[in-house]
């Protein structure tokens, strides 16, 4: 059971430990800096933090001692454009995509059989891979050079980006990524070739005749079931979608109360039928329905949802939970999530009840348990 968790915020990275009776903040790193993402690698124990310095750009740091000390490591770099490259004007923006790193938006360890391999999704849509624990990065040209990539567009952000990287625990060469906006893509050969796999998703924000095109979909987050990796959950801009055939096709789950809109989703590590969501008013308002913070849990594969409220604020709460700000530990009992208004809650009974860890943190971007492999 996880006893340590890392929280990336607008003003630094915070480490929380489970004491004898409660969780508390034990360390702050990068105080004052915009820490947009954190990753714990269960294979090595290493931590990687992504920082976005407004003036000085995106930087990555790595800790090999649990967060006590950090060193700057390589940042993914977009290569120079080929001399014969003819940029395609993106209809949504009226100009070609910018070949330049804007944000590190996802970080994932490779499989257990490929130590040192890391995946990194970015804005404006490049997927990078490291084979040396982050000392160097290479852009995945197969996905970047796919003509359909140039059709991607921003959803909320000004640029499209890869926010989800799911490595199949059965086969490290099978990787599924989520793109806002560009649907869900998967590779079976470690990134040599990619397939667009969003059949069944629906995009209300497009004209009717284009709503089911896979490449315009806006999955907010993709979560793969460790228990059955053929099962994937997507919290989408238009609702909740589920696949039971390794992302080949998707079915929409409707009639979710109080709302099917939201950003995060967490899949239970040992039960493919269980997942958690944090709903919000869709989509131009983005705050909890009726000012009540709730967590939705399904335990029957999406047929029904329980709305969990015990310990969560139930009046005048306007906390939005970003896509990487909910996590579940390796047992499925401990969950933690944080909000844009700096509230952080933990559950140790699979969401049945929640305790407030802090109400005063900076805006929270990501919450990650140190999971025992």
């Amino acid at each position, binding site marked *: 059971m996880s006893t340590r968790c890392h929280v990336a915020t607008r003003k630094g990275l915070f480490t929380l430990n489970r004491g004898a009776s409660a969780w508390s903040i034990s360390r702050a790193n990068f105080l004052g800096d915009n820490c947009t993402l954190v990753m714990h690698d269960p294979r090595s124990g290493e931590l990687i933090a992504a920082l976005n310095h*407004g003036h*000085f750009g995106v930087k990555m740091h790595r800790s090999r001692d649990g967060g006590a000390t950090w060193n700057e490591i390589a940042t993914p770099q977009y290569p120079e454009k080929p001399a014969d490259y003819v940029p395609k004007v993106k209809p949504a923006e009226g100009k070609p995509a910018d070949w330049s*790193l804007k944000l590190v938006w996802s970080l994932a360890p490779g499989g257990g059989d490929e130590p040192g391999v890391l995946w990194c999704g970015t804005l404006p849509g490049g997927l990078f891979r490291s084979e040396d624990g982050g000392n160097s990065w290479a852009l995945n040209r197969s996905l970047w050079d796919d003509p359909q990539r140039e059709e991607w567009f921003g959803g909320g952000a000004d640029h499209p980006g890869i926010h989800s990287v799911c490595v199949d625990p059965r086969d490290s060469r099978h990787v599924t990524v989520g793109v806002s906006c560009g649907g869900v893509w998967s590779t079976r050969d470690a990134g040599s070739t990619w397939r667009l796999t969003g059949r069944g998703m629906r995009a209300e924000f497009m004209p009717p005749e284009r709503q089911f095109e896979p490449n315009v979909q806006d999955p907010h987050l993709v979560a793969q079931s460790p228990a059955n990796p053929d099962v994937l959950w997507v919290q989408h801009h238009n609702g909740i979608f589920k696949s039971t055939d390794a992302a080949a096709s998707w079915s929409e789950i409707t009639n979710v109360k109080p709302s099917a809109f939201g950003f995060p989703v967490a899949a239970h590590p040992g039960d493919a039928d269980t997942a958690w969501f944090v709903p919000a008013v869709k989509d131009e308002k983005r705050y909890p329905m009726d000012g009540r913070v709730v967590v939705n849990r399904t335990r029957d594969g999406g047929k029904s949802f329980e709305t969990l409220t015990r310990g969560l604020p139930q009046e005048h709460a306007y906390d939005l939970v970003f896509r990487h700000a909910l996590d579940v530990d390796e047992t499925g009992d401990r969950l933690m999530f944080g909000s844009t208004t700096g509230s952080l809650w933990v559950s140790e009974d699979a969401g049945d009840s929640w305790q407030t860890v802090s109400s005063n943190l900076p805006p929270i971007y990501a919450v990650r348990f140190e999971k025992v492999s």
Partner: protein
Amino acid sequence: MPTVRFTQNIQRHVACPTREVAGETIRDVLDGYFRLHAQARGYVLDDQGRLRQHMAIFIDGSQIRDRDDLSDRVPPDAVVDLVQALSGG
């Protein structure tokens, strides 16, 4: 030889001491500086070699015009200041 000075605000991330660096254009001067202090490059230029959106460079008090190719001429005894813009904070 031109003198290159950096804002104090960058120093907590990466050491950027004041240096005299030869060069006829601001690109030449910066390339010379980054040969001595490689880690500073990514804090000033983006991955396409352009001046970062929220950074500014002044040559003897005048802001450079060519932020992408950095072709602005640098007089031999100029003072080059690299600072962060007020935008982007």
